[in-house]
């Protein structure tokens, strides 16, 4: 007996979710498992026996409606449906089981996702008489979406189809076809009758054609050990333990990977490196820790580490980002709003976030995508782009369930309204970046520009010019573009190489996805600055013509392009003159309220405080203004004549 006690102490756990409706006999199946594994007690059975008045149960010659063992809340029994995730427990000598029992109706997609989030296996029920239904596909899709790698399809009510192998084979084939579009590597099928107990715990004698294992045996045998990520060490600090000044332990759970005493580690976001001095627990020090252990790490150096920080190995870091794409299951009553703000809770961080865009909404029944969808309704699933105010330390959900998952919380009601799973691709430049501020990536790799390969001196000598960006700023229609093109012509005539970057032209290509809000404008100009710098790196003179109305934006451009290569030019034609010659109708539309954020009309224009030169093309004409710029360049030593050394 003592041996039995110890065996139970060392057994491991399988957490699985069950999807299906009452009609599929799901409650009956779970009731049967609990009953046959003796997890249902006599008083509960007696209560169920008292309440049994289901005709089909009576007709089957059974005394107990097993579903009564599981349908907990009074409201559920009244409605005859299961409205929430219920957790059940049973064990065999080989394994302990935790069932997340979830309802199957369409309006309960959120419950299915909740139950699946902590499961390593999903049990999907199909009524043998009905075959693969829309609901079955939805279950399979959510299973795959939540990253569950093992799936057992229970073809139930085989007793009602005369235990027909043909019926079973057809269902297997139909489901398998559908499953090829999903990512469920381990798929098993069991023909069973929950009501009669066929192939649930014991091998059925009524289906000799089925050579596989009964359900319980499958659940006992499934190997889930290799599902865990033991490679990428991630440790989000939960709490700092400081009993006295000499001890500082960082409490947390090992989300993935393995950490050993003496390991070199890096703390995010500070990126400071140190070593693991001790791995502490109440029961003493450990040599190593692995998921899902809750431990306390002491570091060799005194660093400033607090809740929300993450400890990792320096050679294996998560992505540090403020922008990411994710599949989101919407749990809230009010629909997801694009442009809306929410809290994101990710590992031990809570940060404010904005929904930048909704790429598409998935129809869970057909798997088709609707890119035109305007919002995400309760139980909807969609792909969204999110920006956060502080960086998160993330991995793709398929690689790491812990650093790849997050929830969205409504700012006003505090309700948990969304469950997100990060998508593998992390291409920030592919994001439709309606991004409000410019961000300095903490760990952006140092750019290798082409200038590093062919020296800028060499290029300057060949082209007889030093690259520079002339940044023309001014009100809309103030004559920037005309001056820019006139200068381009003058430079060309003199044997130099320049290129004009003009707002209107660039907008159509580089920034066709952006609007004119302050945020979009900032992102547009960030892209332009990067291009201007690239042209300079190639040895060309860049003539950039952009309204660029704020000092902040222009100083960011200056930073990105480089102080030495940036000349700020104020095209200072007055508003009246500019408005009068505006053929694009910008001013008119702004004054009628049709256009917002037009500098000079309904948004401020901040004139440069110390420009390299101020031009007044309204007085001098464009040619004269361009000549003034040419002189500026010559005087600044950016141009050399054909004969100069």
């Amino acid at each position, binding site marked *: 007996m003592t041996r*039995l006690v110890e065996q*139970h*102490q*060392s*057994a*491991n*756990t399988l957490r699985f979710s069950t999807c299906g409706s009452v009609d599929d006999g799901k409650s009956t199946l779970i009731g049967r498992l609990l009953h046959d594994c003796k997890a249902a*007690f*006599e*008083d509960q059975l007696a*209560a169920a026996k008292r309440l049994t008045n289901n005709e089909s149960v009576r007709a089957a010659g059974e005394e107990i409606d097993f579903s009564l063992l*599981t*349908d*907990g*809340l*009074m*409201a559920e029994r009244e409605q005859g449906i299961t*409205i*929430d*995730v*219920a*957790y*059940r*427990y049973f*064990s065999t000598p080989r394994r*302990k089981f935790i069932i997340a029992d979830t309802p199957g109706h369409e309006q309960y997609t*959120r*419950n299915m996702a*909740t139950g699946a989030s*902590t499961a390593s296996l999903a049990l999907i029920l199909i009524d043998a008489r009905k075959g693969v239904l829309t609901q079955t596909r939805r279950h399979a899709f959510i299973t795959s979406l939540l990253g569950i790698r093992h799936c057992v399809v229970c073809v139930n009510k085989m007793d009602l189809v005369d235990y027909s192998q043909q019926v079973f084979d057809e269902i297997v084939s139909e489901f398998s076809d559908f499953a090829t579009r999903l990512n469920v590597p381990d798929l098993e099928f069991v023909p069973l009758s929950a009501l009669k107990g066929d192939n649930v715990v014991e091998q059925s004698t009524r289906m000799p054609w089925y050579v596989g294992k009964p359900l319980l045996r499958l659940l006992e045998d499934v190997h889930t*050990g290799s599902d*865990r990520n*033991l490679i990428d060490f991630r440790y989000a600090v*939960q*709490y700092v*333990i400081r009993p006295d000044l000499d*001890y500082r*332990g960082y*409490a*947390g*759970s090992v989300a993935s990977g*393995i950490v050993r005493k003496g390991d070199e580690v890096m703390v995010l976001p500070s990126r400071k490196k140190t070593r693991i001095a001790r791995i*502490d627990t*109440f029961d003493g020090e450990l040599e190593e820790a*692995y998921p*899902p*252990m*809750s431990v306390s790490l002491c570091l060799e150096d005194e660093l400033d580490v607090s*809740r929300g920080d993450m400890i990792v190995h320096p050679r294996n870091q998560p992505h540090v980002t403020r922008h990411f794409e994710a599949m989101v299951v919407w*749990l809230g009553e009010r629909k997801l709003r694009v442009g809306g703000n929410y809290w994101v*809770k*990710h590992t*031990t961080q809570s940060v404010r976030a904005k929904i930048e865009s909704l790429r598409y909404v998935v129809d869970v029944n057909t798997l088709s995508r609707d890119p035109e969808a305007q919002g995400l309704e309760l139980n909807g699933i969609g792909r969204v782009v999110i920006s956060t105010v502080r960086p998160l330390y993330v991995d793709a959900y398929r690689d790491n*369930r812990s650093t790849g*998952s*997050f*929830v969205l*919380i409504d700012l006003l009601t505090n*309700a*948990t309204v969304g469950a997100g799973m990060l998508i593998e691709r992390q291409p920030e430049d592919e994001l439709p970046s309606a991004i409000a501020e410019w961000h300095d990536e903490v760990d952006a790799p140092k750019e290798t520009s082409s200038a590093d390969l062919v020296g800028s001196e060499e290029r300057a000598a060949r082209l007889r010019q030093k690259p520079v960006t002339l940044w023309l700023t001014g009100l809309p229609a103030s004559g920037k573009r005309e001056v820019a093109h006139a200068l381009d012509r003058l430079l060309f005539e003199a044997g130099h190489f320049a290129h004009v970057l003009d707002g209107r032209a660039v907008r159509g290509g580089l920034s066709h996805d952006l609007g004119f809000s302050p945020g979009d404008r900032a992102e547009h100009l960030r892209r332009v600055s990067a291009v201007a710098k690239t042209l300079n790196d190639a040895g060309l003179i860049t003539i950039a013509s952009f309204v660029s109305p704020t000092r902040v934006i222009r100083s960011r451009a200056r930073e990105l392009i480089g102080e030495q290569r940036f000349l700020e030019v104020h095209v200072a034609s007055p508003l009246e003159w500019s408005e009068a010659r505006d053929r694009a109708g910008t001013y008119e539309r702004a004054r009628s309220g049709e256009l917002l954020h037009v500098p000079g009309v309904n948004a401020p224009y901040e004139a440069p405080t110390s420009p390299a030169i101020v031009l007044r093309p309204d007085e001098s004409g464009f040619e004269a203004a361009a000549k003034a710029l040419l002189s500026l360049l010559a005087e600044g030593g950016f141009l050399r004549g054909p004969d100069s050394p």
Partner: protein
Amino acid sequence: MNRYRLSHLRELEAEAIHIFREVAAEFERPVLLYSVGKDSSVLIRLARKAFAPAKVPFPALFIDTSFKFPEMYTHRDEYLTSIGIECFTYTNPEGPSLDMNPFDFSTQQCCSVWKTGGLLKGLTEHGVDAAFGGARREEEKSRAKERIYSFRDTQGQWDPKNQRPELWNLYNARRKPGETIRVFPLSNWTELDVWQYIHLEQIPIVDLYFARERDMVERKGLLLPADPRARPQEGEVKTVKCRFRSIGCVPCTGAIRSEADTIPKIIEELMVERVSERATRAIDHDQEGSMELKKREGYF
């Protein structure tokens, strides 16, 4: 094959420690509701593990119904003192003023004043925003759907339809002023898990759980302590070797006939046991769904 794989119990332990730390980090004034029972004894051990080598950063709270077993008061004082955990005791002043008891009133009325009322007032009194409890989902059908963070409105009431979804191990701690939570770190534990953990960890447990010769009366199929307040009839009292599977107030806690006088024997007994642990609680079967009704009022 089992390298880098935690056993079932250690996995449950890790999950509970994670929950303790989350709450300590995100709430202002947590307390641990300590009832002296086996579940709250496990809670205490887990809380110590979560913050070692520092002290547990919150106090325990004991809701006194005045009907607890004398052994429970002794065990509480000795055990908590020995491990250095501060414990507040709260008694609902309405209890004595109404002379509330389960003999002259119904068990529901008695529980509603002493337990539910005491708990709600005690939490308010101490300005508690998060109360750890030892409830487990396995115990009862309506608890099967309980969240780990169970939200209560400003009246301390539970609305089953308005609970937050809990995904992965991400717990949403955002709350409005006056809203509180009950936290259940043992949600995924079974009765057997609790006993195995007590055995594994050698956690001191009140003697009531062990089989002893005790004076009992048998009423409505329940074996109840022969407490003078229960006014036992002439010849009704008999000495029975029994133990308590779940402990609470003397008048309403039934015992089971048992020979299990050690923890391994209790575990063995449980493995063949066919009656659920709450079957010995008089209050639970007053009516179908009574636990759900109590929870809605603010009980666990």
